[in-house]
């Protein structure tokens, strides 16, 4: 997989960007606000599990005090969120308005099936056109996947520097810890590493018998407590969290590159509260929302112009970012991913 610069990343993210629909007039904007007041709530399904994520919801509620965004807040690992959304969509009993998980693949599938609402947020003017697709979704966060270790347990010279180092014999037998297939970032990483290194690499990685945990937070917890030596599917921002750093966690940008998982935000076509959902999407993509979400809460990369990159971390274009290039193949692979994961890691 070739190294990509920022421009190329954005170009690849543009999957089928087409003509931009007209922006809302002032009158239409007022109608959205009045509609949101009538709706009074928004149901937000997301995989944003940071302890301080409630700050984001509080800021949204402060901006729109007539919308209850707490009662309908459903935060869980991406797999659980998507499984619930999928079940509701199939049963035509959707309770959610807005979806925000760190995995682009389901948005592609839902967009193809006509399950997302076309909405061009006025905030998208501050984004490159590649950040959204036919106004079905817009990228609100970019999460990189790296490796990490605990310097109190593993000396720096013994720590892996490259993805290939994961296959070293000293990491065999429950020394590595990875996230389960339910994690959105996990799919993106596994897909990209399989494309880059081949199925044999994945098989040998599985033969190292890594510990499998449900979430990235549990993975860091395992490293902090010394239950595993190396985290091999670490959401990059978690390795640089001040508490994690204090506990001895060191993030490693692998020499071959950092797989990226994009986290879009989208409104469901049959959203019960479409106007409140529009306001939530606007807020998420706004300068205030992006600064809060990406710079302050998650410390991840934003596509909005003018939003500061996460402090103390490597700029995105220096991380040798890895992104899918064959989008139809990427979407197809996502549908098989739970079985693929089990074949490599649970056989």
């Amino acid at each position, binding site marked *: 997989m070739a190294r990509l610069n920022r421009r190329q990343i954005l170009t690849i993210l543009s999957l089928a960007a087409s003509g931009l629909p007209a922006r809302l007039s002032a009158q239409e904007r007022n109608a959205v606000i009045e509609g949101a007041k009538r709706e009074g709530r928004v149901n937000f399904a997301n995989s944003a599990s940071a302890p301080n994520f409630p700050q984001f919801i509080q800021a949204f509620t402060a901006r729109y005090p007539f919308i209850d965004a707490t009662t309908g807040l459903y935060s869980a690992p991406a797999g659980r969120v998507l499984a619930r959304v999928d*079940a509701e969509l199939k049963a035509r009993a959707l309770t959610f308005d807005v979806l925000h998980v760190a995995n682009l693949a389901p948005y592609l599938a839902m967009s193809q099936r006509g399950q997302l609402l076309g909405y061009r947020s006025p905030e998208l003017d501050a984004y490159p056109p590649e950040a959204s697709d036919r106004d079905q979704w817009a990228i609100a966060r970019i999460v990189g996947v790296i490796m990490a270790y605990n310097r109190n347990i593993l000396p720096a010279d013994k720590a892996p520097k490259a993805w290939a180092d994961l296959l070293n014999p000293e990491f065999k037998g429950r020394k590595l810890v990875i996230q*389960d297939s339910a994690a959105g970032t996990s799919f993106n990483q596994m897909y990209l590493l399989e494309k880059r290194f081949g199925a044999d690499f994945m098989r040998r990685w599985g033969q190292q018998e890594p510990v499998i945990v449900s979430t990235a937070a549990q993975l860091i917890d395992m490293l902090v407590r010394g239950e595993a030596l190396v985290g091999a599917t670490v959401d990059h921002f978690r390795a640089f969290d001040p508490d994690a750093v204090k506990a001895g966690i060191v993030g490693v940008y692998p020499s071959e590159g950092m797989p990226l998982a994009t986290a879009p935000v989208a409104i469901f076509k049959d959203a019960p509260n479409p106007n409140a959902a529009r306001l939530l999407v606007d807020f998420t993509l706004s300068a205030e929302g992006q600064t809060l979400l990406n710079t302050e809460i998650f410390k991840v990369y934003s596509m909005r112009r003018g939003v500061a990159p996460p402090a103390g971390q490597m700029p995105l274009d220096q991380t040798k970012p890895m992104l899918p290039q064959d989008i139809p193949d990427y979407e197809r692979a996502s549908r098989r991913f739970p079985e693929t994961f089990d074949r490599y890691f649970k056989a």
Partner: protein
Amino acid sequence: MSAPPSQKAGRLRRGVGQERLLAVALSAIVALMVLVPLVAVFVGAFGDEDGFTVTALTDVLASSRVLGNTLTVGLGTTILATGLGGLLAVILVRTDTPWRSGLEQLVLLPLYITPLLTAVAWSWLGSPRGGLINLLAQSALGLSGSLVNLHSAGGVVTVAALAYAPLPFLLISGALRGMDPALEESARVHGASITAAFRRVTMPLALPALLGSALLVFVQSLGLFSVPAVLGMPASFYVAGTEIYRLLNSYPARVSQAAGWGLLLLVVTAALVALQAAILKRRSYVTITGKAFRPRIVQVGRWRPVLLGIVLLYVLAAVVLPVATLCWAALVNFITVDPKLMSFDLRHFAYVLFTYPKTLLAARNSLVLGLLTATIICALGLAMAWVIVRSRGMAARFLDQVGMMPLAIPPIVLALGLLWSYVGLSWLPIYGTIGILLLAYVTHYLPFGLRALSSAVRQLHPELEDAARVSGASLLGTLRRIVLPLTRPTLVATWTLLFILSLQEISSSILLYTAPSTVLSVAVFDLWEAGNVNALAALSVMQLLVTFAALAVVARLRQKAVAA
């Protein structure tokens, strides 16, 4: 002046008609509650988008590792919990071990602590490298390896057994108290030693309770979710419960396979229930009667401290250590054994009370669900128990059998069936509300209420009800004025137990909740998945405080009732 005989006969006939109506109505309600989700699981296991298929079942049967793990946990937990519960029952009912009455209350406390909390606490205590016990052992004893490793099959079995031991304890101690001591005495008179009399007389007579409790624990542990999720998954040790959760919570969800697991669990537990019935049918156990006996207390002499030690060790492992660990984790700044780094404050309580957005909603939902579940089961269970005990018709037999069926349905399987039955049902829009959780709780816990209330109704002489009916009381009036007051003590105890069990329920809640219907146990699980361990501890401590406060209120009410 009393009514003429023809009028009395007419009233009794009308009463019989009302009884039948009640029996049919109850049968219809129970059939809807229990059979609909079972059909949904069956359909889900054999059907996918392409029509009929057995792929899901063959996939499940080919998963030998998960099958083996499930069986290991099922059998291991059953043997250990039943053995432990039986041993505790013998010690506290049949020996002169000191402080028996107080210890009995302590031994029952794990019933009120959800297995999820016990598992989380023991994960912090006994994880292989970072567990507090291992860290302390390393610093105190200079050990280089691990003293204990609870992230393992053994850990899952041990912690599950600690959590479930009170169930066999309750059933076996009840059976031991209900035995006529004359039977053992006659064995002793004929030359049998204490141990021989125990082996040949006591044990066989306690067999129904032993088998019943073993079956109960086996069914619970076969569908176990929270303990293997916390202690097994970090060791890549998957069982059916965690596998169903995993299959349903990945993208895309593997629904048919999850249903296949559900169906397999159902078939196994149903077969075991039938086997238990067949074993108990072969012999007569009529020597165990409802009559109250004073059990013969065995003088154990120098073994008293040893037996006391065993009971205290259980209380320490199942109650004191987990609760103390949770309290400590709720107050400490972060989890460490280094005293220099420790500081204590209330910040985690402040977080779950004022920042974590789910706390108040989850607490409200849990309390509402607890109140409704306990009340509905008591009302439904009392009516069902009355029909089962007093009627001889087909409906009564149907109610008895179907009403007890949820005992053989692991809650996660029941939740699967309910989810698929109600998610798209527009004429009964309970999906997305606490209504679907209420249905799951009432169905799952119905056998607990039914069994307790059936025993209570059996103790009432039918003459009292007949007198009321002959005097013109309607069926409902009789139930309200005669049956309800006379069964009140059992009702209060059953209501309390059901309220507390509902507060703890996680296995079905995790599949059925949506944002507005989240409950405390799910909020705790979410915090665990999010790695927010100190907040988890704070919320758990608050959950325990609510539980123990409810227990204290009921104990106070009971004391008042006894005094009156």
